[in-house]
Each structure stands twice: as C-alpha cells, then as structure tokens.
C-alpha cells in the first residue's frame, strides 16, 4: 500500500477521469464539478487539480484543446482519450475490489 497521500492522489485522478467521461470540460468547470461531487469529504483544493490534470495529460489519458469562448477569449478544454477510458474502467474495477476488501475486513467481528 502506498502512502496515504498517494492514495488520495490516485482517488483524485480516478475522479477526474470520471468527471471527464461524459463531455469535455475546462479547468474551472472541472473544479466546480469536483466540489459538487466530493465537497468536504476529500478536501481537494482547487489548485491541486491542475498538476493532476497535467499529469493525466502527460500519461496520455486526457488530451487538451484550446477553444474560443465568449468575450473573444479562449479556454483550455480537457477530454478523455480512448486510452483514458480504458484506464477509467481498469481503475474503477481496482477501486471496487479494494473497497470491497476493506469493507469485508471492517465487518469482521472482534474476537
């Protein structure tokens, strides 16, 4: 088992992949969605998602595109790649297995 920090890091990356699964989003929108989804439980600060996003991009699981927005500005939109979708499936499976195992252990009666 890796350190608790890595654990949270892994969970964050999984969430980001999941959030991006339906449609491309830009950074701010992702942070909003993240706040909705996890809120106080995970305590992920806004900023920490950017290094995570860049990392996912380096791994090839998400890809980014600059799209023009209103006001003649532009924003960076991230979307899931095919590889990312597979990674999402894989990680989800792992996560489910892990949580099942942990729940099982927690349910054991103390003897």
């Amino acid at each position: 088992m890796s350190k608790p920090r890595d654990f949270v890091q892994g969970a964050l990356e999984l969430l980001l992949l999941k959030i991006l699964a339906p449609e491309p989003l830009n950074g701010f929108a992702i942070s909003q969605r993240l706040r909705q989804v996890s809120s106080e439980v995970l305590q992920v600060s806004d900023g920490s998602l950017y290094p995570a996003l860049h990392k996912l991009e380096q791994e090839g699981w998400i890809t980014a595109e600059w799209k023009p927005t209103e006001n003649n500005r532009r924003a960076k939109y991230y979307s899931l790649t095919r590889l990312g979708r597979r990674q999402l499936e894989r990680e989800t499976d792992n996560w489910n297995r892990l949580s099942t195992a942990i729940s099982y252990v927690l349910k054991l009666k103390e003897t």
Partner: protein
Amino acid sequence: MHPESWSYIVPLRLRSLFRRSAIEQELDEELRDHIKRQTDENVARGMSPEVAHRAALIALGGLEQRKEQCRDVWGVNWIEDLARDLSYGWRMMRQNPAFTAVALLTLALGIGANTAIFSTDNALLFRLLPYQDSGRLVQVFQKYLPTPAIERMPVAPANYLDWQRDDKSFEGFAAYRLANFNLGGDNNPERIRAAQTSANTFTLLGVAPMLGRAFQSGEDAVGSGSVAILSHGLWQRRFGADQAILGKTVRANNRSYTIIGVMPPSFRFPIGWLSGEVEIWTPLILNTSEQNSRKDIMLDVIARLRPSVNLKQAQANLDVVTRQLAQAYPDTNKDWGTNIMPLAERGVSDIRGLLVFLSLAVGLVLLIACANVANLLLARGMERQKELTVRTALGAQRSRVVRQLLAEGVLLSTFGGLIGIALAYWGIDALSALAPTSRVPELKPVALNGRVLAFSLGLSVLTGFLFSLFPALTVSSFSLHGTLQEGGRSNTGSIRRNRLKAGLVVGELALTLSLVLCATSVLKSFRSYMAVDPGFVAKNVLTMRMVLPTEKYKQPQQWATFFERVVEEIKTIPGLVATAVGSGAPMEGEGSVFKYNIAGKPAAGVTESRVMAEYFRVSSEYFRVTGIQLRRGRYLQATDGEGTPPVAVVSEEFVKREFAGVDPIGQRIMLRGDVNQSVGGESGRPPLEIIGVVTDTREYGLYHKAQPMIYVPMSQDPQPAMALLIKSAGDSGSLLPEIRRRLLKLDADQPVYKVRTLEDIVGENLALFKFNTLLLTVLAAIALLLSLIGIYGVIAYAVGQRTKEFSIRLALGSRPREILRLALKQGAWLSMLGVSLGLALSWPAIKLLARSLKQSMYLDLIGAGPALFVTVSGAVALVMLLVCLIPARRATHTDPMVALRCE
C-alpha cells in the same frame, strides 16, 4: 507505457521541449483564467472585487507554486533543468576564481593521479593479448605438491603429451621452449631470442602470419623442422622487409632454416618478463628420449579452454589425469600436479599485489581531494544561503535545489578531470621514462587510450557526486526564518556544518598520515637495501655473455679452450686490471643449482632445499675481477684445471650450513647433479676438495639472504654459455670496441650480448623496488600537500568567522598572544585528532603494504620501527600546526574598528 499513448505523449513532450515559451504562456493563461472565473463567482456571491480576487488566489494555492508544480509534472524538465543548472554552475565558477582555481587544482591532482595509475593497471592487469579470444587461453604449469610455493614449474614432455587425453576441458595444448639463436652470416652476427613451438601453436593462438603460412602438423617431427617464421620486427630490421622473403634461408646456430612466414606487427609470443622479445619461431623437435621423459621439466605449455568450461572445472578435470599419471608412474609423477593460470597473468601476477596497493593508495588521495573540495563547498554554501532560501520560498522543492548543487559539483569535477587527464598524460611520460621496462617490459605500452579516458571521465563525474552530496544536503536544509534575517548566520545548521568540516579534515589527515607512514617505510627499506653489501665490488666491471653453438663446438673440451683463449686475448688490452669468465656475473642468476653431499656426512634426514647450492664454473681470475674476498685457504688458480685434482671454493654461507665449527678446508663435496636436468653432472664425477672459503654474495638479490655457493674451475667442468667479466682501471665503456674486435677475431660468427656493467646489474636488481618507492613517495607528497591546503582552508574560514569576536576581545584588552592561542586551538585539536587516527589507520595499511611487497618481490619491509613512525607523525602534526599559524597570526592583527563595522 502503451504504444498507443505515444501518439499523444510524443507531440506533447516535443512541444514542451521546443516551444517552451508558448507552453509557459498557455499555463499562465490557463491558471489566470481559472482565477478570473473563480473571482467572478465570488463576486456573484457578494464579495467585493478585491476580496473576491484574493479569495480566488488563496483557493488556488498561489499562482507561482501551482505553475511550478505543473512544470514538475512535465516530462522533459530534466533536460532543461540540467542545461540551466550547468550554465548557472559555469557562471558560479567564473565569479569565484579563487575558489574555482583551488578546487580545480585539487581535483586535477586527485583525478590525474588515479588516471595515471589506472592506465598502468589497464596495461598490465586488464590487457588484451594479441591472440584470438585470448580470454580462453591458459598456461599450464607443473606444481610440486610437497612445497606449495613451487607451483610454476615447466613441464616434462611425456606429461604434456599425456595431458592431451583430457579433451573435455581443452580444445588443444601447445608447447614451446625458449632458445637463443646466433644468426650468422654476412659478418653481422646477432643473437636473438627464439621460441621452438609445437606445430599447432599458431592455430591454437588463432593468429595467422601476415606473409606465408604457419607450421603444419608433422613439421615438428624428428628429422624435419628446418623451417622458421620471422617476427615483423626481425623481418624489417635484418631482411629489409623483403617482400620475396618466403623460401629464402636464414642461418642460425649453424643450421639452415627456410623462411615460411612472417607474423604481423602486433604479434608477440610468448609474453612475459622472462621471455624477452622473441623474434623467430621454429618447430619444437623432441627426440624419442625427450618425448618419453617425465623428469626433464623443459617445456612451457599453453592450452585453450573449451567455450563452456571455466578455469576451475578445467583444473579439476586435469587433476584427474595427473592423478592417473601419478599412479601409473609413481617414481616420477608422485609429487607433481598441475597449475592452470590465465595466460594474461603471465609476467603480471608478480607485480599485481603492488599495483593493487598503489591503486588503493591513489584512491585514498582522491578521497582526500574530495574532502578538500567538499569543505570548500561547505564554506561557500554558507554564503549562498540567502539565494537558496529565496528559491525555496518561491516554490522550488528541496530535491530541485540539491540537483542543482550536484550539477554544479559535477561540472566542477569534470573540468578538474579534464585538467587531470592532461596532468596524467605528462605524468605517464615521466613514469615511462623511469619505469624499469627492462625487467617488466609490459610497462612499455602504458598510455592513455580510450578505456583509460572513459574511466577518467566516469571517475570525474562520480567524484563530483561524492563531494557535493553532503554539502548539497546540508546547505539545502535550513530554517527559512533564521536565514532570511539580516546578517543571518550561526544557528544549528551552521554548527552541524562546522562539525562536518572538522570531521572531513580529521579524516583527510588520518588518510594522509597513513600514506606518509607507508612511504616512510618503503623509503627506509630502500635505503637499508641499498646499503646492503652485495659481497662483490661492482665498480668498473664490464660483463657480457657468449653462448657457443653446440653444433659448431661439439666437445666440452672445445668450450674450455675457447674461453681460455678469450681470456688470454682480452687481458692484453691496455687499461684492464683483470679478465675472467664465469657461469655468470654475480647477481645475474645464471648459476646452476646442484644437489650435493658432504663426504662422510649422512645424507638421510635432510630436507630437499638444504642439500642444494649455487654452482658456478669460473676461471681463476674471477674473484679478482669481482672483488670477492678470500677468507680461508686459497683462491682457484690457473693450475687448477683439467687433469689436476678436482677442487672447489665455497662461500661462507656454505661453511655455516655444513661445517659449523669444523675447518672446511680439505673436506670433500659429492655432487649429485643439476637440479634442472635429469642427465649430466651426476655421479661419475669425483668428489671435489674444498680448498678455500670466500665471502658471500647476494646472488638472489640484495634483499635475499646469501646463498651457499660452490665455485669450480671452468676447465674442470666446462659449459658452452659463459659470461666474460672485465675489470678496468677506469671507465670500461671506451674499451668495448676493442673487446668486440678481438672477440670477432677469435670467431667471426660468435656474437656477444647482454653487455652491461656490474653496477647496472645491481641497479636493475633494485629497479622495481625503486620505482615503487618513488611512486609511493610522490603519492604521499601529493596527499600531504592536499591536506595542508585542507586544514589551512578550514582554519582560515573558522578564524574568519570569529573575526568579530577577536576584534572585540582585542578592543577589550586581550593580548595578541591569547588571540593566537584561541585561533590555534582548533587547529591543534584537529591535528592531534587526525594524527592519532592516522597512526591507528597506518597499522593495517603497512601490513597490507608489507604483504603485497612480499608477494610481488619477496621483499621485507625493514628498518622502520615505532620510533621512526612517532617522529614522522610528530613532524606532520607540527607542519599542520605551522600552516594554521598563518591565518591565526592574521587574526591577531585584526583592526577592531574594521571588524565591527563590516558585516
């Protein structure tokens, strides 16, 4: 990483590398966009614009930090970072010329010395032989089982032939015998080294001649074998690189040989320091009795291992065969086994121990150099504290800072290494000039080649890591608060650093003292050996050797006659004091070893080595020429010759061994035969009467005990190979042409060789030890110099730190002497500690040195007692203290006002 992902990743990474500014701008834009949106959201919730903006920034966690984190995630960072670090390091180096100069010099000395020694190691220990797949070639010796030290003896032919039974481990065996050929004809007699080899030798070695062909099987059978292969050097030198050489004949030792091949220039066989440069190869012809002999150990044997077999397995397999032979032939083979060694070790295993020790010593010097540079870095690190603190505050991780400091260090050490290579180049030249290449011809090809350069550069980089790691780790860990204060100095980090520096200096001193004491030991030993009386007078004596070809001079009587005529002819040359011939000059190692009994003493119950003595055949003037003194009885005279009663003169050591307390004169010696021959010299000779006792000579070398010697008149036991010794009134060199002329008059085809003076012989004996001593002394001197610089640096720095304190004390009325004492205290403490530790370290170091000397040259370290060590250690401590005096005295001159003002 998935190949698929590459289609995304590769363009990304390339872009990061080449369009960096665009990427940076995008990152900035992205984060600012986020802040803007967050700000808008906050405003919509009711905050004022400024508060909203601030809240957004805080929520993000700081713009620059996030940027830095994102940058860290990008894959190509390290290349850029490295480039940036290196350029920064380069700037640092130029901005601090004093520091850079000292560091570079220190590193250059350390790395240069290591490079020089490694090139020697490379040439000797790791060398490649000029044969195909030389790693599979081995040499096979006979080993005398009762005495483990006798494990590299030549091989008896019948044994060699029988070993070929073991074809499990070996692809083949080859044998050879060294010989000397007198090349005759065209009034240019020349004596060259030759090797008679079995027909398959060149095939086994895997080297084909450049011209012509190698021997064919059958050409080493009895009756044939009148063919020869020339070396490239001989072909050029004596035959003018004649392209039509094949088929021509060469006359050697009065036989004609047809030249069938010429070897390529780089080819040498056999290699090894007793071989000399072999220039001609002929087939090895063994007659029937030799083929069946298990007693005449006369052949050198090499073999090629099968690809799947290693040395241990081969040895085990061959041992099976030798045991079978021991059972089948107990009287000859009972005590003999085999010893298989890699061919590459030939001639080198003798000095391997020495080389290893020197390599260790030079490694120590490098460590000392590293310690010095580390100290310099630590001192400088304190000055860079502020700069590094700011960087960390801006978000640089500690690992980044450490990486940068390491890069700077490696840059420094690489430059130092380059200078060191230049130093080594010069140093190797000097080494080669001084090296005893006549004894150890392998030392000749020592040079800077690709492998040595690679080693040197690799070592430089490693050194850089080594000395910058500690300082980098120490300097990068500090408390923000303490260091950002104005004039920030002195806190726990600084104390730890000072302790580290002190520790480094103590370590340096300890290592240096060990080296110095080792050098002292060898110096003292060398002086002691040089003072040893060799037992003869070497001044103004010229020697040369002549070997009569037995084809031309068949009878022993002819040998005696020839050499008598030589003496008669030469002694009439004006300017000569005396002329003689003998088996060899003293200390040449050309005497024979004979077994003997004393008449009337029981032979039983005596161990092998006790009944052997050195046996010299000499003419009557031999003792006069060599200055060997008479102790009892009389010298040999011209009247002692053929027909008169057999007599002998013995040495004092002989008397000590056999006749303690009894007068040896008149006793009789019975010779039992030459140890290295199965026939000849044995019983059948009448006993010798001892007629005189002479002083001992150190026949085996100045650092070996004197051997018991037996001298007999040459005419009573002639031999075809003898040395001519000539004592002249003055310098003998000028007489040489006349001597040659007269010898040619006697026999125009007879060359002389090994022309040298007795002083040369004595010098050569010590040459290797002298070389070793010189090297070790130079290393110790370098180490000492480095340590002096080291301790000076530390004390100067420490004193500099305390300038304020000293000036206050001076202002408050302290006397300069007290300041001096304070300043020196640390220096004294460090010296003492270092010297004590060094004394403790030197104990195992000298033991190691003694062992490697013993293995390599059979030398004992003599004359270095504890008193000498304590004296030298004290001297070193004193010198260190004196060096500390310089900054200490400067401290006493501090102007209080200046010190208090400056920050």
